[in-house]
């Protein structure tokens, strides 16, 4: 679909959001909770905090829940009944809008979609992604942890957003990029004023601190380099980077239950955990934390791009901000680029 451009006043934006909440969309937006901001269900527009840079966690849980039931079984003594977990997802048909996220978070959706439709179509992911409409707000002031520009996106990118809002004084320009976005706007079209592309303020000239291709070329040739073992002595393998990351998607399948009944679930997992690659033989190919963090860098900045033409990182900087031991992945990526 060709992009459509609109203007909307701040007041009308409020009406729009309150309107879609009333229309039974589940609207997820940044909400303050105990002094920090997380994505949460919006009751009304006022509850959203649109001034902060980013909520602490990504909204990945709405595409890939922390725990997802894949199937349930029950054994009556003679027959086994199996219920596909997908039925519940399809049946719930939860129409959601992520409102007020940033371009980095939005980009994570299409990036993850590639691996979830690669050698196997993950219908759980696809169903949720299909029901998600993303309305992002462009960034005006990234902080020193952000590096979306280096990750070939930008604070004003519309990649992954169905609607991108750009603030301009007391109004917003809305760039609608998809049918989904247009369908969301249509019932409230009176609040929007259609406009032309040249009226929308041009993107600023965002500068890069390093070239991600150089980071990749270092990773291509330096698997055994000491940098990984030395630099990540301070990593405690807590997994916070993985869990707060919008693009990390590794999961662990577990079974819960007994002879009579039970279920198979998948939980979020992290390659930073010590037992992530522990074999039943007892051998662990990634036995030091340096090995494990190197894997993270490889997956994000080399392997994924070789398979899917996109880096598995949107440069949101959450891993750096949330790391208890202050490991800054932007610094690391720059170090690798400098050493290439």
């Amino acid at each position, binding site marked *: 679909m060709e992009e459509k451009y609109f203007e909307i006043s701040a007041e009308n934006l409020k009406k729009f959001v309150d309107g879609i909440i009333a229309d039974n969309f589940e609207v997820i937006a940044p909400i303050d909770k105990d002094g*920090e901001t997380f994505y949460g269900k919006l009751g009304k527009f006022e509850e959203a905090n649109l001034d902060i840079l980013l909520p602490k966690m990504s909204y990945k849980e709405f595409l890939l829940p922390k*725990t997802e039931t894949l199937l349930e079984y029950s054994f009556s003594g003679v027959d086994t009944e199996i219920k596909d977990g997908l039925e519940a997802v399809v049946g719930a048909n939860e129409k959601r809008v992520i409102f007020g996220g940033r371009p980095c978070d939005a980009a994570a959706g299409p990036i993850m979609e590639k691996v979830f439709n690669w050698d196997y179509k993950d219908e759980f992911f696809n169903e949720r992604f299909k029901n998600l409409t993303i309305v992002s707000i462009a960034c005006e002031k990234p902080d020193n942890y952000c590096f979306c520009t280096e990750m070939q996106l930008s604070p004003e990118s519309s990649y992954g957003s169905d609607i991108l809002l750009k603030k301009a004084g007391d109004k917003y320009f809305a760039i609608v990029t998809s049918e989904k976005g247009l369908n969301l706007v249509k019932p409230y079209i009176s609040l929007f004023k259609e406009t032309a592309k040249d009226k929308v303020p041009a993107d600023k000239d965002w500068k890069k601190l390093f070239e991600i291709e150089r980071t990749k070329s270092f990773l291509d040739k330096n698997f055994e380099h000491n940098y990984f073992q030395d630099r990540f002595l301070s990593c*405690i393998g807590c997994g916070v980077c993985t869990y707060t990351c919008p693009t990390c998607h590794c999961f662990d399948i577990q079974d819960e239950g007994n002879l009579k009944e039970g279920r198979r679930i998948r*939980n979020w997992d992290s390659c930073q955990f010590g037992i992530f690659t522990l074999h039943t033989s007892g051998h662990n190919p990634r036995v030091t934390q340096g090995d494990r963090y190197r894997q993270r860098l490889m997956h994000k900045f080399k392997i994924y791009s070789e398979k899917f033409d996109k880096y598995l990182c949107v440069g949101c900087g959450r891993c750096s901000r949330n790391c208890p031991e*202050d490991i800054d992945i932007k*610094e690391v990526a720059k170090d690798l680029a400098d050493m290439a």
Partner: protein
Amino acid sequence: MANTKTDEKLQKIAKDLLESGEVSLVIGYAKGSNPQRMRPLFITKPEEADKLSFNHHAVQDLAVFLKKPEVKKFGKIGIVVKGCDEKAVNALIQEYQLSRENIKIIGVECNGVIRQNLADKGETGVSESTVYDKCLICEEHTPVLYDFLVESEEPKLNLSGSVKPYAKIEELESMSADEKNAFWAKEFDKCIKCYACRQACPLCYCSRCIVEKNMPQWIDTNSEETGNAQWNLIRAYHLSGRCIGCGECERACPVNIPLMLINEKMARDINNMFGYKSGLDINAKPVFGVFSESDFNDFIK
């Protein structure tokens, strides 16, 4: 950032230790990713010592690294510790995870560290409203045990009494079971089972954690009511009588579960019941390794 006297003293101690070969690794703090952050630094050569620093942003408990096999293999280690962190070193020695001869304790006097979430927003002032609750009740501003001591240049924390640390604990104690249940159910609902609390804790050093046992699976792995509550309960129990109150678990938690409300409460109750505080004396026996014939018995029929 110019070197302070504290920094210079630290750097000299580390340099001497590495030069003489008394240690092969020094773990300390260095400037972090922004001016209000410090981060752990690992140095093996004397000339690297000039990167060491310490100030009121040094929040990390460096004792957490002593459980890592990659760090243990250095053998003799020098470690920069605040009073709270030093208690973790003591507790590790008490539990035979570390021998006293293999560790050179470089104690620093600390008068409070600023909460990292405030520091990230620009806070640089140390006061009772900007530091962690643990600092307000701290009795180890000077570490109880050390091989070297670096005095602080910062003024002592002014406690007016208007900020009540861990006030929520008393509030919870006075609630009914249903109210407590509701409070904790809401908090544990946030848990994402990242186990950052465990990883950040210097005393969670089991090479195979109980959650990783699956024959039988004692603790559900799911990130729902059952798995979350079971995990947080068992971790709190395994820490009872051992936790030294560094608060790293709460700081590392990405969803802000107030874990210290449990750990501090249990530490107080253990002290009341058995007269024991963890990490103060390397010769003391761990509280569950011993017993008294007159232990609290009233709850048993």
